[in-house]
């Protein structure tokens, strides 16, 4: 908690001139829970004797790249490096792309051996890079889903949509 849930946070990318992995393009993708209440009001509500269980504020929305229902460009057959960053305050995100596997190549700034996963979980402040090769089709777009893990929420308010997605725009 602090000022970053009020929006004061951004990606900080350091490119490696000797990049060991090959890919055609890279896309920065931030994930964040979003609160309608400013932290100057939310923190006193949280840190008070009236909240003896320490129930954390529940976010109102999930953001990807600080918006909702956006698109990213996916050219058939091209390989993309997606830099996933959870810039949120509380919620872990489950992330997957319909119809595509992801190959993890970097965790928190450290390269890994390439490891294929159908999806992954991204906790707050975690950074993961994956390689994704766009399917060889141009007749379909695919959602990249970021779904907040609601297990840590004390309750899930009616009307809360814990998920957000970005459509890949196939070319």
């Amino acid at each position, binding site marked *: 908690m602090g*000022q970053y849930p009020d929006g*004061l*946070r951004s*990606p900080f990318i350091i*490119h490696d001139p000797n990049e060991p992995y090959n890919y055609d393009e890279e896309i920065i993708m931030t994930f964040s829970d979003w609160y309608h209440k400013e932290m100057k009001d939310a923190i006193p509500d949280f840190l008070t004797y009236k909240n003896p269980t320490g129930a954390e504020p529940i976010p*109102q929305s999930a*953001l990807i790249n600080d918006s909702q229902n956006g698109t990213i460009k996916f050219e058939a057959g091209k390989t993309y490096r997606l830099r996933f960053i959870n810039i949120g305050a509380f919620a872990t995100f489950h992330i997957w792309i319909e119809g595509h596997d992801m190959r993890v190549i970097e965790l928190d*700034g450290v390269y890994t051996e390439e490891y294929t996963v159908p999806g992954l979980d991204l906790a707050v402040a975690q950074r993961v890079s994956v390689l994704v090769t766009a399917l060889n089709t141009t007749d379909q777009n695919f959602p990249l889903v970021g779904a907040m893990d609601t297990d840590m929420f004390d309750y899930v308010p009616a009307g809360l949509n814990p998920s957000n997605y970005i459509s890949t725009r196939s070319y």
Partner: protein
Amino acid sequence: MAPLRHAVISALISLPLLVYSATQSLEWNITYTTANPDGLFERRVMGVNGNWPPPPIELNFGDRLVLNVNNQLDDVVTGLHTHGLFQNGTNYYDGPVGVVQWYQNPIDSRHANIKAALHQARVWPTILQFSRMALIGSTLT
């Protein structure tokens, strides 16, 4: 001849570093603005230079970043830190404000002189090494 040979060799070794190293200087005024990213509720947010979301920073391995931060929030102190960077010897540019990092005071005419000094002191001489990705956030005291 040994010293000369060493000088030539070390110059050759450091040449690629010199080629790749660059300094990026940014002026960041931390300001309030409004945003409605989920389409449900317009609210006050903290942005940079009047815009939200704050811009990403992209550098190459070995580059130097000089980030001049100006707190124009009026009512609260602020500070910036990164996740994933080694801050060996520059701990005061990292971590919680008021613990290891100096305050960035809000604009206050009574402290105008102090503030100006603070702003000049608020550069980040961090030479970015070993880390490739990080996140900027902020702390509140």
